[in-house]
């Protein structure tokens, strides 16, 4: 904005302490490209260095303060001006003054709460990032570094099967069964369709996975439906008493865990849609919600404590204070 500066007089970059060892995860950007970012879980510490490099080593850099922020925010695409920050931490690195040479500042955000999973969708984005800022009178110099957060869960205690009888009177009666109601992202949907009565001419049957992203509240709720998968399970006409098996491997599809009413701003839910198509292309369908959750990979011992905190927070059991203490003790032991 200043006419008298030709470009920035300094460069900032942020480097994590564990950049060599920390895993990266792929995450879709708003324009559909896939990028890799450092992967964090709830409760993990975010630590590193901020390097401020002066472009002209002789010239002094006056500033109003240097700080680093850790931000978790929700951005609704139709309301870009308003960012809803649900996590906002600040560390001051330097008081207002002067930099005579390039300098490096250490920072550590200890055991940061990251309650939700990173999500980039059709109408809403939830992201976490570090932002280092050198404040100046006319224009600040800042640098953002995005990270990706995954929320982990363990096998739910209660996971009943979905079993239902549906139909059109005197035309079509089916009984469908899916082995679980909660599936992890690399799980298999095992089920069957049992035909009790078939009086229409069925051409084929398929199972669709539908993702529904809901944004907004009250009167201005908006649902965005996206069919993630279409999987044909039967080709041809069944007869009464016939049973068609279902075996649908979820690992092949790009899905996120079910997200319910995140910070009261949005939801992402998944549905199985059983569709029967008759010879006149008429469609008969039954939709059923399923819950998706993310299973932790086989973790190294040092990571298991952090993952435990994350899992407990999701399950809602145990206070986070005692979990942190316990994890800290296990970690150092």
């Amino acid at each position, binding site marked *: 904005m200043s006419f008298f500066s030709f470009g920035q007089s300094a460069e900032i970059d942020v480097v994590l302490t564990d950049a060599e060892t920390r895993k990266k995860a792929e995450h879709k950007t708003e324009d559909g490209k896939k990028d890799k970012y450092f992967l964090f879980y709830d409760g993990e510490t975010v630590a590193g260095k901020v390097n401020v490099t002066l472009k002209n080593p002789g010239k002094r850099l006056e500033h109003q303060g240097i700080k680093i922020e850790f931000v978790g925010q929700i951005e609704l695409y139709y309301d870009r001006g308003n960012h809803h920050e649900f996590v906002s931490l600040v560390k001051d690195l330097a008081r207002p003054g002067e930099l005579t040479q390039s300098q490096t500042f250490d920072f550590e955000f200890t055991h940061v709460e990251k309650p939700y999973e990173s999500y980039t969708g059709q109408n809403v984005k939830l992201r976490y990032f570090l932002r280092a800022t050198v404040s100046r009178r006319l224009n600040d110099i800042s640098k953002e570094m995005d990270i990706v957060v995954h929320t982990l869960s363990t*096998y739910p205690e209660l996971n009943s099967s979905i079993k239902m009888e549906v139909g*059109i009177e*005197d*035309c*079509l009666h089916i009984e469908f*069964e899916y*082995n679980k109601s909660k599936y992890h992202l*690399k*799980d*298999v949907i*095992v*089920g*069957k369709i*049992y035909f009790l*009565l*078939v*009086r*229409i*001419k069925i051409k084929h049957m398929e199972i669709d996975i539908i993702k529904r992203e809901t944004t907004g509240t009250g009167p201005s709720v908006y649902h965005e439906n996206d069919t993630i998968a279409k999987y044909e399970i039967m080709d041809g*006409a069944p*007869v*009464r*008493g*016939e*049973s068609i*098996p279902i*075996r649908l*491997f979820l690992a092949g599809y790009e899905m996120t865990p079910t997200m319910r009413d995140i910070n009261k701003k949005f939801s992402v839910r998944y549905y199985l849609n059983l569709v029967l198509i*008759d*010879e*006149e292309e*008429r469609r008969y369908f039954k939709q059923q919600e399923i819950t998706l959750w993310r299973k932790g990979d*086989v973790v190294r011992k040092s990571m298991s404590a952090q993952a435990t905190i994350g899992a407990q927070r999701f399950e809602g059991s145990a206070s986070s204070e005692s979990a942190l203490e316990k994890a800290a003790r296990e970690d150092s032991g």
Partner: protein
Amino acid sequence: MSDPTVADTRRLNSKPQDLTDAYGPPSNFLEIDVYDPQTVGVGRNRFTTYEVRMRTNLPIFKLKDSVVRRRYSDFEWLKNELERDSKIVVPPLPGKALKRQLPFRGDEGIFEEAFIEERRVGLEQFINRLAGHPLAQNERCLHMFLQDESIDRNYIPGKV
């Protein structure tokens, strides 16, 4: 529960299928033929009727085998009744052919053999698509069209 690192892909239990169900006749048999066009009347009061024969084993139809005679305007009446009373998207009828009804044509107009055949095929497709629709099967007008000797235009519309 078995080893949680390997997905559980065992089949769910199914009732064994009864052989009479597996090899028995299908319970969704429905066939309607539109054939035998006959032109009746003289001069400007001529019109063509078609024989409409339905064979079915669906329990919703009272007669399992019925034969009636219908003309194009009867099909139009059925289409209008269903568009008004039911929520279904009614399939299209073959064209009204108004141009063929104008005078000073070189040919027979709507009584041309080729035209009647084209119309017959269209009507057959129309009635088969319609009669197979579960929501159309609930309407009295469809049953009256297919199985009553003549259509009572003053009937009370309703569900079966």
